[in-house]
Each structure stands twice: as C-alpha cells, then as structure tokens.
C-alpha cells in the first residue's frame, strides 16, 4: 500500500545531509518569497522618501527670495503736485506713477556701478523689478507722506524670472525663448548681484503676504491661506470636540442595546468612509444654497470639515472610554454618585488623553483636506485678509491645501515652486500636530 502514497523516487534519498532537488527547490522558493517581501517593504519606503524629497527639492527654494536694494528719490513733482502732503490727494497717483521712480533708481545704480547696458533698454532695466514693487512703495508713501522729497533706501522684490534665474529654474537658454526676460537682462542681473544691489534673502513675505496675480509669482504668499486654515481649525475644534465627545459618551455609556443604537453606529462607521468630495456637495447644497451662508467663508469650510472629522473623533473617543476599567465606574456608583456623575467626574478625565490624541489626529486630517473646500468656493482668488473673528468667519478666505491647488493651476512655473513650498509649510504643521499627539499619548496614557 505504501507504494501508492509515496511518490516515485522518494526511496532514492541516500543521506539526510545531502539536499535533494525538491528540497532545494522549496528552499529557493522560500528565499524568493522572502526577498519579494523585502523588496515590497523597500518600494513602500522608497515611495515615501521619493514623495517627500521631490516636494522638498521643488519647494525649498521658495523660502528664499531675490530682492533689489535701491536708493529711491521720491520726486515731489511726480507724487504730490499740490505740495500739501495730503494722503487723500496723493492717492490719485496710481502705481504707474511710482514705477518710473523705481526704474530710474535702478538705472542710476547700474550707471554708478559702470555695468554695461548693451542690449538692455531703460524699460528692460525697470522690468527687473517686480510689478508688485510700485504698489509696496505707494502704500509706504501714503502711510507716511513726509517721505516725499527724500531719498530712501528700499528693498523691493525682483521680478519672478530673475528670482528663478538665481534659484536655477530659469536658464540663459530658456530666457532666450521667453517674452518676459532676455539673456542680456540676466547678465545685467548677474552683474548687479556681484555689485550687491541684487541679494538673496529670507522670504518672510511667503508666510505673511496674500496671494498675488498670475503675472507676479514672486509676490504670492500664504498669509490669507494660513489665516483661513487657522479659522477653520478653530471652528472644527470648537464644534467637533464637544459634539464628538457627547455623542461617544451617549453611545458608550448610556445607549441601550437596540436597533436605533445599531443604526447610529453603522452610520458613523459609514460616514468615516464617505468620499470627502460628497461632504463638499453637502456643504454646497445645505450650508450655502439652503441656509444662505456666503461662499468662500471659513465658517462653511469649518462646518463641512467638522462633519468630516466627527467620525474620527467619535471612534477615538469611544476607544478611550472603553479603555477605562469598569471598576472605576462601579466605585463611583458605589459611593452614591449618579451615572452621569460617574461619567463626568471619573471616566471622562481618565479618558481625556486618548480623546485629545484622537482630536488632534482628526484636526490634522481636516487641515490637509482639499476636495470639499473646492466645491464651497474656497478656491477663489482672495487678496484681502479676513477680519478678526467672529465676523471674520464670514469673510472670504483661502486655505492652505486649496492655495496649493490654486497655484498648480497657474501657468507660470514659478508657482510650482510656491506650491511645493506651501506643501512644506502644511507638512510642518501636520508633523507638529502628530508629534503633539504622540507625546500626549506617551506621557499620559495609562494602562490598567
């Protein structure tokens, strides 16, 4: 009988110490499988590294900015014809009145340094300065009319292409094909840099300035977006934490085991998996069209993100409440506390670290969410800072991830650099929040 169950050749085995072909094959398959696993892990980690390094390589340069240092003579004949130094009257001079002053100042500096102007017209020299610079100068003069008639030293933004040239994004070859810049201008910029008139400095404006129009990537900043995101996070925190905790307390501590409770629970786990864009449709249909809240307002964004964050917070809070041992509740009930007192005085404080950790992670998710905000109009071009809360919640604003998306839709490649820089800022916020969550968990988590 054994002849049947034993495969042919099984008796050919001579020594246990010599591996037969079949064992070698099996061992090779084992090693292959193991290598495949290692390769998969490596690919996964490489994907993470590639993702982060590509963003950082593209975006790191946005934290530096090219500036032009000028001695500008503020000609009273141009800026204040009446001589009264009255800001209301001086406001009639538009930025077109200020631009030539800057151009002349730069031309004088070029001349004083003895830099060759071959192939570069007066207009080309002026074009090295950002179109945003006259507006900056105008605001400065209107805020302080006494400056008129003086020569002030000023640091203004250089044009986006010049900025790109010093950061390696624009080359002589690409400039030759570019309508906005010529190789001759770039050579002049090189000379100006050697003379110390053009410098590269830290780009504070990136964090504080509002968005800028398509032709002025060098002036675009994240000020409005950071403010808008902060407002939305405030709203999300103030709404989702109390609602989420209250809902979890009810479901975990009070709810009877019946169909209704089951329905709520299934509902919450399904809401956690609804695509984020559907929440955007909800926000548009309910909060904007039905309730009549304004578009692009942080309050609408905050409400939509609150609804999205709630399932995360509820799931985390319920886990934290479950982790508190029943003996704590029994002890409280035993000395005469009501059910409500035992929960609010004993269970909730013990569950707090877990709840806060879940909340921070939920907030971090909400901070990076983009798609629903597109639908409620946060993608609009906003240059005005929103007012202070609570009225500011109704003002139009942008948000960090939406600003990134907005910049990627623009033509000028300088905006890609800005978008990557904005992602770095966003990721920094997320890292800080996640580290806070980890620290909180490590320090306060108790195991019974």
């Amino acid at each position: 009988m054994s002849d049947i169950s034993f495969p042919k050749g099984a008796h050919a085995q001579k020594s246990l110490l010599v591996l037969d072909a079949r064992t070698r094959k099996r061992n090779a398959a084992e090693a292959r499988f193991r290598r495949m696993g290692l390769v998969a892990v490596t690919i996964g980690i490489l994907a993470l590294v590639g993702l982060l390094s590509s963003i950082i390589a593209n975006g790191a340069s946005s934290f530096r900015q090219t500036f032009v240092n000028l001695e500008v003579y503020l000609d009273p004949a141009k800026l204040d014809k009446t001589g009264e130094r009255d800001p209301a009257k001086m406001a009639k001079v538009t930025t077109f009145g200020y631009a030539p002053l800057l151009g002349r100042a730069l031309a004088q500096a070029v001349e004083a340094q003895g830099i060759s102007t071959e192939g570069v017209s007066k207009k080309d020299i002026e074009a090295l300065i950002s179109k945003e610079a006259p507006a900056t100068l105008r605001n400065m003069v209107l805020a302080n009319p006494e400056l008129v008639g003086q020569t002030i030293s000023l640091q203004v933004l250089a044009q986006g292409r010049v900025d790109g040239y010093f950061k390696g994004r624009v080359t002589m070859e690409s400039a030759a094909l570019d309508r906005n810049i010529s190789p001759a201008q770039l050579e002049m910029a090189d000379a100006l840099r050697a003379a110390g008139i053009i410098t590269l400095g830290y780009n504070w404006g990136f964090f504080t300035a509002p968005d800028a129009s398509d032709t002025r990537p060098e002036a675009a900043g994240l000020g409005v977006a950071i403010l808008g995101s902060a407002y939305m996070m405030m709203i999300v925190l103030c709404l989702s934490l109390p609602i989420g905790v209250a809902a979890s307390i009810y479901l975990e501590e009070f709810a009877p085991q019946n169909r209704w409770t089951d329905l709520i629970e299934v509902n919450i786990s399904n809401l956690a998996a609804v695509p984020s864009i559907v929440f955007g449709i909800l926000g548009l249909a309910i909060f904007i069209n039905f309730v009549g809240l304004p578009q692009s307002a942080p309050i609408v964004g905050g409400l939509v993100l609150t609804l999205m964050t709630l399932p995360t917070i509820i799931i985390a809070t319920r886990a934290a409440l479950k982790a508190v041992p029943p003996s704590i509740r029994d002890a409280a009930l035993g000395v005469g506390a009501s059910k409500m007192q035992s929960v609010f005085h004993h269970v909730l404080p013990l569950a707090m670290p877990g709840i806060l950790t879940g909340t921070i992670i939920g907030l971090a998710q909400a901070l990076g969410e983009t798609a629903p905000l597109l639908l409620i109009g946060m993608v609009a071009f906003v240059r005005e800072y929103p007012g202070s809360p609570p009225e500011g919640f109704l003002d139009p604003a942008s948000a960090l991830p939406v600003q990134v998306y907005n910049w990627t839709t623009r033509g000028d490649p300088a905006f890609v650099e800005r978008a990557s820089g904005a992602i770095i800022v966003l990721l920094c916020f997320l890292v800080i929040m996640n580290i806070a969550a980890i620290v909180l968990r490590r320090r306060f988590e108790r195991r019974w």
Partner: protein
Amino acid sequence: MSLGLLSLIVLGLAGLGFFVGRSRALAVVGGDGRKLHSLPSYHGQSVALFAALPAFFVFGVWLFVQPILIEGSISATIPDSVIPEGGALSLVMADVRRIADGLEALVQAGSLTEASIAQLSTGNTDIRAMLAAGGVALGSDVPQAVLVAATEYRTLSGAGRLAMTGLVLVLAVLGLVLSLRRITPELRARNISEAFVKALLIGASMVAILTTVGIVFSLIFETINFFKMYPAKDFFFSTVWNPQFRGGSDLGILPLLWGTLYVSFVALLFAVPLGLMIAIYLSEYAGPKLRGLAKPAIEVLAGIPTIVYGLFALVTVGPLLRDYLAQPLGLGTSSSSVLTAGLVMGIMLIPFVSSLSDDIINAVPQAMRDGSYGLGATRSETIRQVVLPAALPGVVGAILLAASRAIGETMIVVMGAGAAAKLGLNPFEAMTTVTVKIVSQLTGDTEFASPETLVAFALGLTLFVFTLGLNVIALIIVRKYREQYE
C-alpha cells in the same frame, strides 16, 4: 438688536440664574445643605437650563422659519412681468433680499431714514447708484415692483426680528423666575439637570444621522431636479460627455465611470500586491527592529494629505512617465494620464491595504501555523497555503475598502489624470473620472439651475452609492471573518 447681543443676554440671564438658584436653594433650607435632595449647584444648573434652553430653542426655530414664511408671502406678490426672460423667480428674490439688505445698511449708516424709504420709487431716485454707495452692487436697474417687494421684505423681517427678540427675552425671564420659585428642599434638581444633559448627549449622537440624511437628501433632491431637465436614460447609457455653456450638452456618465474604474484598477494593481507583501513580510518575517521602523514609515503615507500626492503626480511622476516611458514608446505625449494617477494613488493606498491585512494576518491563530510547520512546510508554504487562505475574506474586505477609497479620491485624479472624457484603453492617455467632473462642473461659471451644474449631484449620488455599497460589503466581510476566530 443684533443676534450676538441677544444670545449674550440670554446666556447672561442663565449665568445669573445659576448663582441665584444656588443661593436660593441654600436659603430655602436655612443654609443646611443636608436637607436638600440635590446639591445646591444642581439647583443652580436647573435654573440656568430653564432660563436658556426654551429661549434658545425658540430663537433657533424662529431664525429658521421666518425667512421661509416671509419669502413665501413676498414672492407671491411679485408679478410675472419683472421676471426676466429665461430667468427664475429665485433670482428676482435674491435681488429683493440684497436690496433690502442694502436699504438696511444705508439706514444703519444714517444716510436714509424710515420716512424716506417709504417715499422711495424708481421714478425719482437712482436706486442702483444709491445702493452702490452703500456697498451693494446690483447687476441691472431695479424695477418698481422689485423695489416695493424689497421695502416690504425689509419691514416684515424687521417686525419679525423685533417680535422674536421680545419673545426670546420674555421666555428667558419667565423660565428664570418660574424655576426659581419652584425650588424646594424636595425638588429633584439633580435628576432634572441630568435629564437635560442626557438629552444633549442624545442630540449630539443624532448629528451623525442628520449628516447622512443631509447628504442623501441634498443629493437626491438635486438629482431629481437634474433628471427633470435631462433624460435619465441618456445620463446612464450615453457614451459621450460634452457639456456646453449654451445648453444642448451630452452628459453621459459612461466615459467618466470607465475612467474612474480604470484609474482605480491601475492603483489597486499596484497597491494590492505591494501592500499584501509588506503586510506578510512585516508580520511573518521582519524582526522587531525592522518592524518598529518600517510599519510607522508606511503608515505615514496614510497621513499625508492627498493634495501632496496630487502635486507629486503633477510635478514629478507625470513628466517622468511621459519622458521615459510614453514618448519613447510612442504611446502618448500627455503628462497627465491614467498611469500617472493610478501609480500615485497606488502609493496612497499601500498603507490601507498593508495595515488592515497586517491586523488580519495577525489574527490568524498561531496554532494553525504551528500545525503547518509540524507537517514540515516551510514558512512561505505555510503563509501561502495556510495563513492566506484563512485570512482571505479579511484581505478581500481590506481590498474593497481600498477600492472605495480609490473611487472616491479626488485631488490625485484632478491633478494627475486629466480632464478629457474618453473611452480608451491606452494607459498613457489622459482620461477623467467622476470626481474630477464633480469639481469642474461645480466650480465653473455656469448657472446653478442648469443641467450642466446639476449633473454634479447625479454624479455625486452615483459615487455615494458605489462607495457605500463597497463599504457595506467590506464591513460585513471583515466583521464576519473577525468573529470566526474570536
């Protein structure tokens, strides 16, 4: 009186009620707290609750109902003649509201008086210019009927607001006084305040239900509107997607569904084997050191916002695939393609597949592995022939969850897949998905009540049904499987 001030007053009354109630409870028993059924602060709480809650309830309901009622009565008075050709009553009503707001702002600023509003007419004043000075820009001149409706609207809402303020304040004071007078040593104040709190907790847990109801209703309502304007048969079975500004659009969902499924398929083709192998390696082979390092690193991928993946697709992966694969092979010249979006989305999905599968593989009892080793199987044979078959239902659940993520993902496809609605097989071509078109139809400049905009709701409903179905199936599978070994 502004709404903020009114709510502050009510809150102030409630706060006052707390302190007065607490001291009154003590006073009733002559300072001997033991004679009270409840602690004094519970008496204070119940007074505060009675002062605040009924008032706030009326406040909320009034704010919600008043505009509906007023709007109904005003829109009945607007004659058909002022409704522009092809326009809608709702547009005229929006003008009415804005004119009323503008008049109110002018009165607040002091440049108009109540008497002068009553005499306003389109004949003797340029309403549009006047309102523009007050910060309200109107698209066209104001017909007399609209102006009359606006002044009427303003009067009515003013009167409503006044009545509401009065009623809310009276309710708050009434609640305060009545509940104060009710305080006796026997009053079960703790039970009252706890019942309130419990009602609050139940209300909070209702928010989840309300959200779902809100989603379903807003989607269904607008989808029905859409199907009134556009035949459902064409939407579901037409293979052409070609929206036009001036009507006559072809809005067939099939090319979008095809794009969605194609991109998701590519993403899963990348993420499932990779994620599964990672889960197997980390749970069966890796030492604690590598596991402690690699597992969090992979899970970081799940915490990165999708906009980051989108930018990665747009800036890095798209051009790379185009320059080194598509163009040399002569398959396409576009940097946004199905493969770009699918690959990047695959990276995003790795942690979803790997951490869920990891949990499930760990849940397979050790005894099953030991039995297999005892029979002489190698590790990989054990995994392939014992662990994976045992974990299969759970793994399928994990894959379905990942698929539902892939179908609902927006930013990666918006930035990586392109906008051309096509039914093609070439993965290097740009195609579009349901989510991309929801974004583009709802962020465009088309009028809201047109089929081109409303189609987004029908697309959203399709998406919602798809992902919900996948989730429910996945959850049922995962739950059933978990119970097997518990």
